[in-house]
């Protein structure tokens, strides 16, 4: 795997010191640069990276799932020991405990793409589902499919369409938890002018909450 372009060890140490949440990237950036205690990490550098002080990983919609699947053991161990994983996008190759494939929705109209709240979770407190259904008047950015086979102890927060097909869910694994969102990256809404922008800080708060994040 890549070894030649990742910068000096000194730079890395400075960048990652104090980072509690890592956003995994594919040569792009997560848009979270400058957020306290969040750092981007190229996906291909994950193996061998010291995660002992990291409490959460953000896995976005563009990640290489073949590579993630090859490193499922690393991810499962991270969750088991209390880490939190936020996974956005469409899981095709399940790469962590409890994941099953995403199913695209054969949508016909806006009603099919309407986001319905069916459970409560702090990541979405104060977020109006209408602001998730529509972005600049267009439906579908937030989700166009669902996860039909979630673990039995999953808390479903949002469903899609009249049948409320599960779109957002949280489930435990070992001492940690997985937050699954079947659409565009939650942190991509950070700059929106609607209540959808609340998701990003609330997601980071949730990841850090059980790890003494507020005390450090």
């Amino acid at each position: 795997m890549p070894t030649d372009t990742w910068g000096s060890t000194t730079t890395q140490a400075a960048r990652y010191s104090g980072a509690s949440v890592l956003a995994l990237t594919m040569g792009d950036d997560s848009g979270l640069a400058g957020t306290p205690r969040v750092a981007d990490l190229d996906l291909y550098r994950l193996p061998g990276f010291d995660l002992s002080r990291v409490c959460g990983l953000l896995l976005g919609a563009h990640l290489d799932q073949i590579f993630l699947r090859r490193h499922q053991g690393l991810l499962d161990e991270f969750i088991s020991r209390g880490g939190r994983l936020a996974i956005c996008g469409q899981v095709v190759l399940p790469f962590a405990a409890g994941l099953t494939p995403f199913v695209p929705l054969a949508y016909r109209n806006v009603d099919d793409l309407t986001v319905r709240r069916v459970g409560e979770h702090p990541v979405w407190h104060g977020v109006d589902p209408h602001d998730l259904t529509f972005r600049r008047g267009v439906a579908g950015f937030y989700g166009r499919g669902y996860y039909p086979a979630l673990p039995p102890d999953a808390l479903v927060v949002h469903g899609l369409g009249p049948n409320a097909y599960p779109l957002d869910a949280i489930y435990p694994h070992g001492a940690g938890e997985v937050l699954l969102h079947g659409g565009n990256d939650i942190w991509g809404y950070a700059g929106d002018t609607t209540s959808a922008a609340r998701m990003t800080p609330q997601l980071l708060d949730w990841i850090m909450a059980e790890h003494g994040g507020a005390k450090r």
Partner: protein
Amino acid sequence: MSRTRIGLLHGGASYHLTTLADPVVAGYQPCPLYLPDLDEAAGRARLDELDVLIVCDRLHPQLVRRHGQALLGVARRGATLVVLGEVEAHTWLPGVDWTPRPTNFWWWRTGDDPGIQVHTPEHPIWHHLDTKDVVWHYHGLLHPPPGVTPLASVDEEGATAGLILYEDRVSTPGRILVTTMDPVHHHGSNFMPAATRLLHNLLRWVSVAD
């Protein structure tokens, strides 16, 4: 006539995998090539077996760049190289510049004219693509070397600001088709019928190589 051997270079993202599993795409029996496998000689050797290599959109730009010469080698031996958007092609294709533009996902709703003009109507690609297939959003503008065939451009203030689709038969003995559109991402993410048509029709065109 023997079947056109098409390779799809992908990066393992959900939309790459979903596109490979699409029955219409699978009908062309493409050879899936996983980008990190090009780090191995055996992976690069598979490029030699292809008539057409399609570099899928949205690949890790550092990895693509590292293998840029191997990818160009496909066109240098006379075969076809198709380069889709968001792979920083200007950093590894010779003589190509790129300028960013804000991506307008909403033009069809706001009534904005994306300013896309189709060129070279006699080109055989238009036997397979409908001009509507290339009128959606794009990711920046290309400024290719002289002598290429423009197929779609963006006009700003009445003048061509850059290309979003062109064919280059002058830089190598083969042909290089380049675009700044990302049809695999949008097709594989279940989002945009025009992206699906562009991808399917591109495949049809390259499979009948003229």
